[in-house]
């Protein structure tokens, strides 16, 4: 499949419910990014603690406090992103956005609620995510509870123009 075909499809998909691949990739990017930031912050705190106390501080995944802080951080990461702009970093990369079920911009309280009930989709053996595949509006369990939906929201028309522009760009202007 050519890039042009994808660009055409993406233009017509604007405002439509986002599918499973885009949402999973966005989530994967978010988990990677948020974990990396958390890891860096933990390393920085450990270094400062070592300098101040003079003792080696070691954190591990079994530490209950670290786990609790990690959960809180993840909640803050997703909750704030959804409440403030309807999209996390990963969602911005994949060009998808959380909206209210009717398509209007997400209410901040609903964004926070979505972050609170998000783990429910995991706790039920991941069955909560099945809605993305089988539900008519591709809404997962946490979407149904929070009254939200996820849609394609990137400027695919501009992307299509960029694609056409690259195609029609004179060969002489391209570097060898």
């Amino acid at each position, binding site marked *: 499949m050519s890039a042009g075909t994808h660009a055409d499809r993406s233009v017509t998909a604007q405002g439509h*419910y986002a599918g499973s691949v885009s949402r999973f990739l966005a989530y994967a990017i978010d988990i990677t990014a948020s974990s990396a930031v958390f890891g860096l912050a933990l390393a920085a705190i450990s270094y400062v603690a070592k300098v101040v106390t003079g003792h080696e501080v070691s954190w591990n995944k079994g530490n209950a406090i670290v786990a609790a802080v990690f959960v809180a951080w993840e909640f803050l990461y997703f909750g704030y992103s959804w409440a403030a702009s309807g999209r996390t970093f990963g969602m911005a990369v994949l060009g998808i956005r959380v909206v209210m079920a009717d398509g209007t911009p997400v209410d901040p309280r609903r964004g926070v609620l979505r972050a609170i009930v998000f783990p429910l989709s995991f706790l039920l053996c991941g069955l909560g995510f099945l809605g993305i595949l089988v539900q008519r509006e591709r809404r997962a369990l946490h979407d149904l509870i929070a009254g939200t939906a996820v849609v394609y929201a990137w400027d695919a028309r501009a992307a299509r*123009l*960029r694609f056409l522009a690259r195609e029609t760009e004179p060969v002489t202007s391209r570097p060898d």
Partner: protein
Amino acid sequence: MTDPLETLAQGVAERVLDLIVHALDVNALVQRVDVNALVGRVDVNALMRQVDVNALLDQVDVSALLGRADVNALLDRVDVGALLSRVDVNDLMRRVDMDTLVEQTDLGAVIAKSSGGAATEALDAARGQAVGLDQFIDRWAQRVLRRKHPAPPGPPALLNGQAE
């Protein structure tokens, strides 16, 4: 030779007519005329059919006419803001075939130079691929579920273009 009696009679008649015309109150006479009824009886279409508009226009020196027109004064009287407010720019833009425009003009090169970049290109491609895979999986899900009625493609407000 003219009959002197006939000449005299003609002179008397002219004099009498003169006196009658002077005695008539024309304004009062006109006031008694029902102009609307008079105009209603005129067949304007038949009248217009008899007029050779082309011949009429041929006689008009349009250049001279335009030369007499003060276009600047005319434009000063036009409320461009009100005029533009009546134009549905969104509808106008929707009618523009951007693909053809980009292909047939140098606009493509301008866009490529202003918004190009490896990162943007990669992002566009990744998003496009993800949408393609989404739709592929969705098609299979629809087949497995054997849905008789197609699901709505998106939220109503977004499909109607009311929300972002």
